[in-house]
């Protein structure tokens, strides 16, 4: 793999320069100290760059809405003319965690398969991703990307990956797109030596070891492949679950949606918005018949979809081990707890 170096102090200069060509999305500290993935406003780039943080901070919301917004219009019909909504921009995702990138790749495949989803796919065109993962997990009780095999560092299938080696980042180049980017902005990058590559290796090993939560995915898949986990487990979960949908909204790979029409002045606009299988109305038919009326069926749907059906269809688990479902849950349910329970 090709590598380079960039001084930490040059990162903001690089982003400033790149913002002329790209819409840059990066982790930004917002009021109250939270970190959110935001688009850097071109008109006020200097102020925004000061808020970019590459520390190992917890990012409560994944970047899925860059490609699959919570609410989007599909088309508009005005005076019998249909106008499609088209959103396209060159996007540079900077400082994204490896597991979130794996979540994006998983969703890419889903929106490509069978019928292509133009809305999602047009937003992914000309996308460059620079990964910067954590050296220590921001939430030790929630993070389990090593168990999901989605991080903290990737060996392949990425554009650029930064490894924090102290004063500088080792810059690993994983794709032609990534290489083109480095060449274009080469004045910010330096050659690296073997000792820096070795140092990065040690850093990576340490990062892997720092994650304490271990979740047995393959055993969970095996269990589901054979006999489904007993109803009692789902019923127990359903008793606690308040079906708020929080876990789905923060899940990097949950992509179910609702479709509805709205009239605005002379125009009719068709929208889609996020929806979820934990809501009772999700499967309720107009006749009133609902195949997943009971709470425990909806609880089992989510776990079995992520762990078993996704694995069966794609060979990959739909859970990337980010731990957000657990941290967002008002009653402390989450994928890691579920797997722990069924594999105990």
């Amino acid at each position, binding site marked *: 793999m090709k590598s380079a170096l960039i001084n930490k102090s040059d990162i903001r200069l690089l982003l400033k320069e790149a913002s002329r060509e790209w819409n840059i999305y990066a982790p930004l500290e917002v009021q109250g100290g939270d970190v959110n993935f935001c688009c850097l406003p071109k008109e006020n780039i200097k102020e925004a760059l000061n808020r970019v943080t590459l520390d190992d901070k917890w990012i409560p919301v994944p970047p899925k809405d860059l490609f699959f917004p919570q609410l989007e219009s*599909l*088309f508009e*019909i005005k005076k*019998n003319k*249909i106008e*499609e909504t088209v959103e396209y921009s060159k996007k540079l995702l900077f400082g994204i965690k490896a597991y979130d990138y794996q979540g994006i790749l998983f969703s890419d495949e*889903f*929106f490509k*398969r*069978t*019928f*292509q*989803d*133009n*809305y999602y*796919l047009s937003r992914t065109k000309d996308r460059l991703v620079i990964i910067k993962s954590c050296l220590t997990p921001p939430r030790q009780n929630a993070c389990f990307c090593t168990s999901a095999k989605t991080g903290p560092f990737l060996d392949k299938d990425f554009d650029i990956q930064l490894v924090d080696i102290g004063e500088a980042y080792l810059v690993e180049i994983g794709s032609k797109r990534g290489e083109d980017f480095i060449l274009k902005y080469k004045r910010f990058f330096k050659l690296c030596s073997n000792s820096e590559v070795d140092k990065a290796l040690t850093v990576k090993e340490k990062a892997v070891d720092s994650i304490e939560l271990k979740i047995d995915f393959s055993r969970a898949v095996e269990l589901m492949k054979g006999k*489904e986990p007993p*109803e009692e487990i789902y019923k127990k979960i359903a008793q606690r679950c308040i079906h708020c949908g929080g876990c789905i909204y923060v899940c990097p790979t949950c*992509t*179910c*949606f*609702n*479709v*509805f*029409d*709205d*009239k605005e002045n002379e125009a*009719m606009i*068709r929208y*889609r918005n996020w*929806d979820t*299988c934990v809501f009772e109305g*999700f*499967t*309720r*038919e*107009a*006749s009133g*018949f609902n*195949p*997943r009326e009971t709470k425990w*069926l909806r609880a*089992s*749907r989510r776990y*079995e*979809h992520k762990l*078993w*059906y996704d694995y*069966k*269809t794609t060979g990959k688990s739909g859970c990337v081990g980010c731990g957000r479902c657990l941290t967002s849950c008002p009653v402390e349910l989450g994928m890691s707890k579920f797997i722990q329970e069924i594999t105990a």
Partner: protein
Amino acid sequence: MKNEYIPYPAIIEAIQTESFDTRTLKVRFKDKRLRDSFDYKPGQFVEISVLGAGEAPISITSSPSRKGFLEFTVRAVGKVTKAIHKLKVGDTVYLRGPYGNSFPFEEAKNRNLLFVAGGIGLPPLRSVINMAFDNRDDFGNIKILYGAKAPDELCFKEELKIWQGIPQAEVLLTVDKPANGWKGNIGVVTTLWKKTEISPKDAIAYVCGPPIMIKFVLQKLLESGFKPDNIYVSLERYMKCGIGKCGHCNIGDKFACIDGPVFSFGQIKELPDKEREI
């Protein structure tokens, strides 16, 4: 790359009242090229939009053997279907599709066909029934068992009589609650088993109706000696996108909209028990 979410305008040419809450619409695409090129198979559905009300998946009840127009039978139960019922001849609906898989047709040639339908379950089967009648010599005997709550609620009342008159075709009707003048059978659709011989020999069965009806019909078909792979059921699920993305119609690892809506009973048995109602 074609945007699958974009619907195309079609004009309503005729509206036939089937019952107090059910109508059949005959439509033609505005665009002549689309009218000529639109191809579908029996059992497939389209997404029908009434602008402002939304979109609903409705099976195509016309037969692909009769070209240039499409027919849909719609019961007014939800927001979109109620809006469809407010439309008049000459009004525009927007369509996209066809979507979903279809009933076996080529594979059914030279065999006997058994159709079992309940209520609004007949319209999806009507597509394959008329296609079979339009290719009458390719099939053995054709039996149609059809039940509804009341005589008034039977769809295609005139066409049922035409089908009855076709050689080697038998139409048996039943209702739960008879009205004045009803001379036919009374009871659920499975009571028709006593009125005719149901043989699995060289036969293929097509079933569509409410889940509770399907459940009892499947049991009856198995008792009569039908193999699960010779029984085809059109499964209904709440759908939004129709193209395997929105997630509403998933059953196990399948989507009713792209892997179905037609499943053999053999395939249905593979779906997780708790996710299927039959």
